[in-house]
């Protein structure tokens, strides 16, 4: 319980100190978390109102409060639902998942005071038991490399659009194809340098709040909006804009700016 309480507190502090966001709804919504859910429950989830964490079966998984980025991931689902309502299916769902990994990773880096080049960019690095042949649930720097285990199988995340997975499993592959935008964020953050939340994180957060981020937004539209927001925040031709464009290009998404840059925000 202390772990969940502390993790939610650190996540709140991160959103407040970095983005001046007052909780999930930016209006001070109380953070409610349930721990010890079910029996040997292997999961953590956001149900639209609160976060729930299982204790794990202690065979494959340890308790789901053990990784700060997992706590940050679940709370960030609430932020995404509040701001953009990204539909939990196909590319919009994968963006929803990616936003949670992006903020979850930054919460951990913030706690550790880590610059982007020092971070491990793993999600749930503490969660898998010693029996499992793997290092985490996901790798943002190298999607598809987090685990390869006889029981869990092989990490199916792609890191490039050429390997995009079309499936009805996992709500249309929301935890699978999130590897693509995850790697784009990792590339943008490490190419810009410094702390991830200072510039790349700011661009992603402002994109999440952008009124043009529709509920059914796909990867390309999201990528274009990150470029718009990089320009709005740091200027056209800035290092940040270039880094964001290059990051998306490297994962197989060519950005284009066809609309006027001026818009109400």
């Amino acid at each position: 319980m202390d772990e969940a309480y502390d993790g939610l507190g650190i996540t709140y502090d991160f959103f407040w100190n970095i983005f001046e966001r007052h909780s999930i709804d930016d209006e001070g919504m109380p953070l409610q978390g349930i721990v010890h859910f079910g029996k040997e429950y292997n999961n953590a989830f956001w149900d639209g109102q609160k976060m729930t964490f299982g204790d794990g079966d202690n065979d494959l998984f340890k308790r789901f409060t053990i990784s700060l980025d997992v706590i940050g991931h679940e709370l960030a689902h609430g932020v995404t639902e509040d701001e953009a309502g990204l539909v939990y299916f196909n590319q919009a769902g994968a963006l929803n998942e990616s936003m949670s990994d992006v903020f979850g990773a930054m919460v951990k880096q913030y706690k550790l005071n880590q610059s982007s080049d020092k971070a491990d960019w793993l999600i749930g690095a503490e969660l898998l038991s010693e029996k499992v042949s793997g290092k985490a649930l996901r790798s943002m720097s190298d999607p598809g490399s987090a685990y390869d285990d006889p029981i869990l199988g092989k990490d199916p995340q792609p890191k490039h659009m050429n390997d995009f997975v079309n499936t009805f499993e996992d709500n249309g592959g929301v935890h699978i194809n999130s590897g693509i935008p995850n790697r784009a964020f990792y590339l943008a953050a490490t190419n810009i340098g410094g702390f991830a939340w200072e510039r790349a994180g700011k661009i992603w957060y402002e994109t999440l709040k952008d009124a043009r981020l529709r509920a059914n937004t796909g990867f390309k539209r999201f990528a274009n909006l990150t470029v718009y927001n990089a320009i709005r925040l740091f200027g056209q031709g800035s290092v940040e804009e270039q880094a964001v464009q290059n990051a998306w290009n490297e994962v197989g998404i060519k950005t284009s700016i066809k609309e006027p840059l001026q818009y109400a925000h």
Partner: protein
Amino acid sequence: MLIDFKSDGGIAYFPGLNRSKLINTDSLSNEDSMKAKELVQRCRFFSITYNEVPQRGADRKTYTISITDGDNKNIIRVSDPVEDEALADLISFLNKLSRKAR
């Protein structure tokens, strides 16, 4: 009694855990077989109807359970958190059986 149990979703996608499990109670130990039948009866499985698709939230697990016992057959789909306690107990037990069968 034949039980087809599938758990989908959750905080990560693991190909090895996402497969449907077919459980024949005749192949279980006496204790597990009796427990499975008792839990199926207790949640009145053959008379409940659930076909839920969560409207909000993320990382929830969705369970698809199909059970055939003689002429009785039913299939349901529910997502966490499962409010029906008797059904939640059945799901927890089926998860346990799935783990044993790994």
